[in-house]
C-alpha cells in the first residue's frame, strides 16, 4: 500500500501543468476563476488545442490516436485541467462513441469517423432517451426499417444534450419489434443530422439555459453501412458505452475545482461580521462536504489504480457516479446558500459580483440533472444490488 504518486506520475503531472500554462487561453481560464460557467465555444476551442497536442482521447488505444496513458494518468490530466480552469471536454464522441467504434465498428467506420472525432470536424450527440424511455431505456420505440440499401427511421429522441451543435448522432433504434425481449430488437446506428427529416427543437431547462433538445426523426434514410456491429445487438454496445460514461461522471477533478470556488465564495461573504467560512454553522457544512469529497477522491484512485489500460471498468462505475453526482449537487447548494438573498437574483450581469450571486443558484438547478442522466441514482442502486451484492 502506497498513497504517493510515483515519480513518473509526478513528472507527468509537471508535463501536464506545463502544457496548461502554455496553451490554455486566458479568457477561458478567467471564465472559471471569475465564477462563470464555460460556454460551448470555450469547450470547442479547447478541444482543438488539446487535439493538436495529441491528448484529446486518452481512453483510446494508441493506434487510433489515443495516448497510452494509464487510468491514473488520465485522472491526473483531468484534475490538472480542471484546476487550471479548463472546460470539460464533451464526452459524446471521445468517451462514448469512440470506444464503441473501436471495439464493435467496421474498419470503414473507424477510418472515417475516428479522425474526425479527434480533430473536432464532427461533433456528436447521443440519441438514446425518448419521451417514453428514460430509466427503462429498453422500451424505446424509434423504429428503423431496412428498405433496400437504407434504414428508414421514424421516432423521437429526447434530452439530446448539445444536439443543437451536433452534425452527427449515434442512436439506439428498434429494428425488430417482435423480439422475445425488448433488449434483443435494438440496433446502434449513426445518423447524419443534416439529412432531410431530422428536426431539432430546444428544451429550456430549469437553469434557464439551452443544453438539451428534442430530436424528431421523420422518414430519415441512412445508408445501411451506418449500422454499428450487428443488427439487433445494439443493447450490448449501449451497455458498454454507458459503463464508460459513468466512470467520467464521478468528476473528481471538476468537483475539486468547484470546491475551491465555493471556499472563495465563503471567504468573501460576511455573516454577523465574520467571514462566512469562519461561521460555525456554515463551516460544519463545508466540513461534511470535504469529508465526503475526500472519501470519493481516494475511492476513485483506488479503483483507477486497480484497473489496467483499456480494461473494462463498468462494474466500478456506479460507485463513483452515485456519490460524485451527489457531491456536485451539494457544492452548488452551499454556493447558493452562501450568498443568501442575493442568490434569488436571476438575470446574470457581467460583473464578478453578479457572477458569484448567480453561480450557486444556477448550479443547483443545473445539477438536478446529474443524478438523473447516465443512469438515475435509483437505477444505479438497482444495478449495484444485482451485480455487486448478488441479492
Amino acid at each position, binding site marked *: *500500500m*502506497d*498513497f504517493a504518486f510515483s515519480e513518473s506520475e509526478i513528472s507527468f503531472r509537471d508535463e501536464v501543468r506545463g502544457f496548461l500554462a502554455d496553451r490554455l487561453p486566458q479568457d477561458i481560464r478567467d471564465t472559471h476563476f471569475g465564477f462563470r460557467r464555460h460556454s460551448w465555444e470555450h469547450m470547442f476551442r479547447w478541444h482543438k488545442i488539446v487535439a493538436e497536442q495529441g491528448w484529446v482521447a486518452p481512453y483510446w488505444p494508441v493506434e487510433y490516436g489515443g495516448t497510452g496513458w494509464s487510468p491514473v494518468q488520465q485522472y491526473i490530466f483531468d484534475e490538472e485541467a480542471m484546476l487550471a480552469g479548463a472546460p470539460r471536454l464533451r464526452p459524446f464522441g471521445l468517451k462514448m462513441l469512440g470506444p464503441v467504434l473501436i471495439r464493435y465498428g467496421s474498419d470503414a467506420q473507424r477510418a472515417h469517423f475516428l479522425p474526425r472525432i479527434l480533430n473536432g470536424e464532427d461533433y456528436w450527440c447521443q440519441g438514446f432517451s425518448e419521451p417514453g424511455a428514460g430509466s427503462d431505456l429498453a422500451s424505446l420505440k424509434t423504429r428503423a426499417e431496412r428498405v433496400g440499401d437504407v434504414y428508414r427511421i421514424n421516432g423521437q429522441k429526447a434530452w439530446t444534450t448539445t444536439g443543437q451543435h451536433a452534425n452527427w448522432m449515434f442512436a439506439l433504434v428498434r429494428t425488430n419489434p417482435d423480439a422475445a425481449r425488448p433488449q434483443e430488437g435494438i440496433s446502434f446506428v449513426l445518423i447524419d443530422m443534416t439529412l432531410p427529416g431530422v428536426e431539432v427543437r430546444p428544451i429550456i431547462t430549469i437553469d434557464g439555459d439551452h443544453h438539451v433538445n428534442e430530436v424528431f426523426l421523420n422518414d430519415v434514410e441512412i445508408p445501411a453501412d451506418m449500422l454499428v456491429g450487428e443488427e439487433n445487438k445494439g443493447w450490448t454496445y449501449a451497455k458498454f458505452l454507458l459503463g464508460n460514461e459513468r466512470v467520467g461522471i464521478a468528476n473528481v477533478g471538476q468537483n475539486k475545482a468547484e470546491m475551491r470556488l465555493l471556499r472563495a465564495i465563503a471567504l468573501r461573504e460576511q455573516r454577523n461580521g465574520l467571514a462566512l467560512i469562519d461561521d460555525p454553522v456554515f*463551516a460544519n457544512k463545508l*466540513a461534511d462536504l470535504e469529508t465526503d469529497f475526500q472519501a470519493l477522491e481516494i475511492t476513485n484512485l483506488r479503483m483507477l489504480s486497480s484497473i489496467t489500460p483499456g480494461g473494462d471498468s463498468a462494474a466500478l462505475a456506479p460507485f463513483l457516479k452515485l456519490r460524485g453526482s451527489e457531491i456536485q449537487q451539494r457544492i452548488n447548494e452551499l454556493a447558493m446558500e452562501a450568498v443568501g438573498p442575493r442568490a434569488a437574483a436571476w438575470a446574470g450581469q457581467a460583473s464578478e459580483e453578479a457572477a458569484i450571486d448567480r453561480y450557486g443558484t444556477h448550479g443547483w438547478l443545473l445539477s438536478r440533472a446529474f443524478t438523473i442522466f447516465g443512469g438515475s441514482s435509483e437505477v444505479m442502486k438497482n444495478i449495484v444490488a444485482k451485480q455487486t451484492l448478488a*441479492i
Partner: protein
Amino acid sequence: MDFDLSDEQRMIADTVASVLSDAGAEDVWGAIVDSGLTGMTFREDQGGAALSVLSIAPAMVELGRSQKHPPMLGGAILPGLLSARCALPGLDAEKVIEDDIRVAVALPENLTDVRTHGGALTGTARQLLGASDAHMVILCRQEAEGAACAVVDLAAPGVTRSDQILVDGQCVADVTFDGASVSWSQADKDLPVWLTDIAAMMMCAVALGAAQSLRDLTRDYISTREQFGKPIGRFQVLQHDMVDIWHDTEHFASLVFAAASACDGTDVAARQRAVSALKRFCGTRMRAAAACSIQMHGGIGTTEEYELNSYVKRILVADMLFGTADVHAARLGRLIAETARAEAKTYGWEHAG
C-alpha cells in the same frame, strides 16, 4: 499509488487474525506478547520493530472483526509510539515489550480534570485504554508553548485505579491522583495531537473491521430471511439501504488507510485533514449505517445475543473517543478556512473576505 496490502501489512494482519481466532479470551494478551506484537511501534534500539502506522492499520481492522478486546492500542501501540519519540525516564521499553510491566497512555482528552501543583498531581484521568491491568501510566499533556510527558507508577502513594467497561466491552480504567509526585519532561509540541490523531485513526480501523462484518451479516440476513413469501432482500427499499451501507463501508476504508498514511507523513495539516474527515465520516455516515443494519434485521437486530450488536457498539465507541464527530468537524472547518485564505492569495481573490 498502490492500494493492495503489502506483504508486511498482510503478515501482521494475518498474525493478529490467527491470534484472535485461536487464543481463548483469557489468553489472548499472552498470545499477542508471544507473537511479538507488543513491540510493533517501539524503536529498533528499544527492541521494537519501528513499524509505520500504515503497516499496523490492517491488523486493527482484523481486531474489529473479532469479539475480543486485547488492549492493542492502549497497551502496546500508543506506549510504543510515545516512548519512541519522547525520552521517558523510569520506563524500560524492553520490559513493556516482554510484558514484564504493562503501561497505558493518558492523552490530553483524558487529562482535562488533572492538575499539577508543585510537582504533585491531583484529579482523575478518565477512560484510559489498557489501564485496567497496567503498572504504569504515561501522561502526555499539551502546554502553551509545547508539550510534556511523565511516567507515573500506579502503585505509588496517592494513586488509585477504578476499572470500567465500555459499551463495546473493552476494559478501561479511571486513575485518580491525590498528591502523587510527578516529574514532567518536555516534548515536541505536536506530540499530543499527533498521538491523539493516531489513536483516533486506529479506533476507526477497528470500526472498519466491525463495519465490514456488519455489512456482510446484513447482506446474508436479507438474502435468507423470508417475509411475504420471499427473501426480504428482494424488496427494493432494502436493496437501496444495503447499497448505501456497502458504499459507505468502501468509502470509510478509503479514509482509514489514507489517514494511516497521513499519520506517517510530515505534513501536519494534511494529517489533521485526513484524520478529521475520517472521524467525521465514522460518526455521521458509519453510525447511521450501523443503525440502518439493525433496522434491516428487524427484531433480531435489537438483541444482545445476536453478534450484530458487538459491531454496532465498536462503531459507537470509535466515534466517541479521541474527538467526537463534532470536534473533528470544527477542526476540519478551521483547516478549510486556512486553505481558502491561502488560495485567495494564490488566485488573486485577496480583495475578497
